[in-house]
């Protein structure tokens, strides 16, 4: 007997088509705004001569972490420059920064809400599981009808893919605040807002920062993949190397990604550690 297959894919597609046509105004607006943001940040970073940006990053590493990280970061960035991958690196960095900003701005309020409301928590957690386990490439496909080929689609897919850890860690951080401290705040007559801003958020800050760190790492991995839908940057260098079968070029771009990842990771980790 032939059991007809459920037309799940068809439903999703017609749903997406409907969304694209009904909300094209909104998607186009988002697209415009994001495009402007990307352009602005990219131009800004490009305007700085490489040595200046290199110095800024090294200084930041020195202040926030250690001289060792500063030296390592400077050496790594210098290598990228030397390999002629400076511009793609800046493009990738731009995408990471914007995607992370958007993801964090959306994730933290959601994380807080999920921590404070058990009901919301139960709704949000399965959605996060879905977002994280869905193969990352799949997000790229609906992004195209919404935002077209290019950086905005890359940002869209990246935000969805990289947001979950920021939400999870924010929720976790707030839930980890010892009950006795909450009780102490209550006993002195703190309002919900006072409790949140004077006790819960400051105490969960290290955990939230760890979540942001994870988000940055995921964002970086995603913007590289997003080269498949036309995002510029190191990813497109890798993509080109694959198409032309040039492993040397591919590894050069890959190493640049690794260096960028390590600098971003260590830098954000040191931010979360330096707080109490």
């Amino acid at each position, binding site marked *: 007997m032939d059991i007809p297959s459920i037309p799940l894919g068809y439903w999703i597609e017609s749903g997406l088509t409907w969304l694209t046509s009904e909300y094209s105004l909104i998607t186009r607006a988002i697209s415009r705004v994001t495009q402007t943001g990307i352009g602005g940040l990219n131009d800004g970073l490009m305007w700085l001569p490489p040595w200046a940006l290199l110095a800024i990053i090294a200084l930041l590493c020195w202040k926030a972490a250690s001289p060792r990280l500063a030296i390592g970061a400077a050496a790594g960035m210098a290598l990228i420059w030397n390999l002629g991958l400076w511009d793609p690196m800046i493009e990738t960095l731009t995408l990471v920064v914007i995607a992370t900003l958007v993801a964090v701005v959306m994730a933290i309020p959601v994380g807080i809400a999920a921590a404070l409301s058990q009901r919301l928590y139960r709704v949000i957690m399965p959605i996060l599981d879905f977002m994280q386990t869905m193969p990352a490439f799949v997000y790229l496909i609906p992004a195209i009808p919404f935002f077209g080929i290019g950086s905005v689609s890359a940002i869209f897919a990246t935000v969805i893919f990289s947001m979950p850890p920021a939400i999870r860690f924010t929720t976790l951080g707030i839930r980890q605040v*010892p009950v*006795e*401290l909450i*009780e*102490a*705040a*209550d*006993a*002195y*007559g*703190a*309002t919900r807002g*006072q409790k949140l801003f*004077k*006790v819960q958020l*400051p*105490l969960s*800050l290290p955990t939230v920062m760890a979540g942001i760190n994870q988000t940055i790492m995921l964002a970086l991995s995603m913007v590289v993949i997003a080269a498949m839908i036309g995002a510029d940057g190191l990813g497109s260098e890798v993509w080109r190397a694959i198409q032309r079968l040039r492993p040397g070029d591919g590894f050069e771009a890959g190493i640049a990604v690794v260096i960028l990842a390590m600098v971003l990771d260590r830098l954000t980790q040191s931010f979360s550690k330096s*707080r*109490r």
Partner: protein
Amino acid sequence: MDETRNVKIQVRGVSKVFGKNPKSALKLRDQGLKRPEILEKTGQTLGLSDISFDVYEGELLVIMGLSGSGKSTLIRCLNRLIDTSEGDILIDDEHIPSLSEKALLECRRRHFSMVFQNFALFPHKTVLQNAQFGLEIRGIAPAERDKKARESLTQVGLDGWEDAYPNQLSGGMQQRVGLARALANDASVLLMDEAFSALDPLIRKDMQQELLQLQSRMQKTTVFITHDLDEALNIGDRIVLLKDGEVVQIGTPEDILTKPADDYVRRFIEGVDRSRILTAESAMRPVRSTARESDGPRTALRRMRDHSIDSIYVTDRDRKLLGLLEADAASHAIEAGADTINEYMTQDFRKVTTDEPLQNLFAMFSDKSFPIAVIDEQQRLLGVVVKGAVLDELARAGE
């Protein structure tokens, strides 16, 4: 009890059921069922049952009980960190169980400071910022906050530690910060939840002493929770003894020791060193006879003979103690033809105030056999303590 003292907090018929349907549990309670049966029948725990007591203005009331007695629940009902299931709690005529959320916050800010067993200091704030917390919550201006917090840190002996973080301090010092946070807030009632239980025994004793000193200076209404009877007896003006969510006895430390309400209390107090807590007042007997300073030696001697005693205390018209006249000295006075006994009195006797521990009296008897005079602050003679009475009191309390 003492009618002249103002009642600060009234607790009337307060019960607390942990569970979804408190009414059903309370109904069973009214039918005479106890905690275990109620738990079995309804799956709910009867945390507190029909608790009533008063907290007087300026007193240090200890609520004591073993774990599971409901003492922590009870103290949290006072500032409604836990909602009661039935009953009334009034602070200055404000009915706490029925306050709106907003009014409750206001009530907590104005009336309650709390000190916690595990300190509950904010690890991300400095000592000074911790001490300011209550004031910050109340929206007091930073300058005044700072001033008050520094004052209260001075009171608890933490000068110079303002900028340290809690994790840099020892347990005892951390709890001082907890205390400073409570004092800076200047709320009308201080709630202390097993405040010293997490401290080493020696530091604990120190903290108890300091609390008593603070208490005598500030006269702050304090409700102190403990599971330690020694601590309760040491610091409490009065003690509320809880067992399985019910009040077993309410009274002064001495009441608890000398008149235990039931076997449970009696077993409880078995381990306590009684002589340290019993005072001269409990062993004091009325003076059978005294002589007036205006009396002649013959009158005095006759009084001694009438009451078969060989010495007599001499007082003035206001019962102020002037001295002791021995029978021998009275005879000398008569032989010398003296009119008054003034010059024949001796000051070679022991006098104590009512709060002198019995243990100390015991040592005084070794060198003199006169009864010890018990006086008040105005030097007025209230009674005497004889050796037999001390032994008797110690023995009775030791039963």
